[in-house]
């Protein structure tokens, strides 16, 4: 069995190791955000999820697990057993990750209601496909707003301000004009 894993080792493309974490929705969000840029980029989304892992202070034992293999992204043969476990776990994680639909920031029915509220003429209607597309548009809008707020926060941190990692209204104030111009 170690021989088999050894022969497998060079074939692996980087990040196969992903510890089982109790944070499915978060992983799913990763998928959503990468999915936006490159649809169906399976290995990339896995990589991002993995990168995000060490920075989160969820559980100590898991954190140590990560550091044991994260130092050099390849796992040594002596750890073959554990590696196999982890690989299985990541497989399971991935499959559920892609079965679940991506979560919308704004529920479609609420958005539809809000749109109809905005129409001046009560006779105006909207097609189903157009509705979906508007939903996608607003999803992008919300995601973009949060992503830009995150950027602002990072800039503020570099600027030497006191930062506690909280997104502030000031961040939103800075990004709002350009955001609205872009959409």
């Amino acid at each position, binding site marked *: 069995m170690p021989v088999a894993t050894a022969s497998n080792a060079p074939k692996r493309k980087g990040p196969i190791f992903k510890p089982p974490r109790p944070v499915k929705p978060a992983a799913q969000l990763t998928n959503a955000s990468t999915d936006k840029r490159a649809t169906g980029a399976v290995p990339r989304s896995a990589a991002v999820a993995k990168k995000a892992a060490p920075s989160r202070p969820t559980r100590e034992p898991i954190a140590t697990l990560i550091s044991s293999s994260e130092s050099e992204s390849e796992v040594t043969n002596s750890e073959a057993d554990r590696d196999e476990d982890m690989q299985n776990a990541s497989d399971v994680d991935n499959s559920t990750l892609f079965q679940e639909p991506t979560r919308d920031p704004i529920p479609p029915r609420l958005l539809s209601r809000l*749109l109809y509220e905005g129409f001046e003429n009560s006779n105006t209607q909207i097609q189903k496909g157009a509705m979906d597309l508007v939903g996608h548009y607003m999803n992008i809008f919300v995601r973009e707003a949060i992503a830009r707020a995150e950027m602002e926060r990072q800039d503020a941190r570099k600027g030497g301000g006191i930062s506690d990692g909280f997104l502030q209204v000031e961040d939103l*104030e800075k990004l709002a004009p350009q955001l609205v111009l872009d959409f």
Partner: protein
Amino acid sequence: MSSEATAADKEERLKSALWYAIGQYVDDECLHKNLNATPQFIGALTELVYTQIANTSRDLETFANHAGRKVINTDDVMLLSRRNEGLETVMKQYLDQMRAKETPAGVTDKKQRGRPPGKATGKGKGKANN
């Protein structure tokens, strides 16, 4: 006056619903990015999104009216992204995906997927569509 009050009330409730939805999403996103958001941030974002939706709906209505229609279709929505090329690309992709799903037969689905590289083998039809 009572109608005014109910209108304001309705708007308030819609905003609350939006607040809740946005709050959930921001919390999820923050959990994942190891960030945090103040409640004020979520409130302000809600306000921003609410205004954007209101603008969007008025725009869409105007676009449809301009085309002499009472029903908004996807072309009107695509006009929303007229000033942002990147956004337009993303929306176009989504639209194509949606259309591919709508067409019932798997054959047409394959055809659509084959089209982009088909530029090399391209007959006039593919180009005309683009």
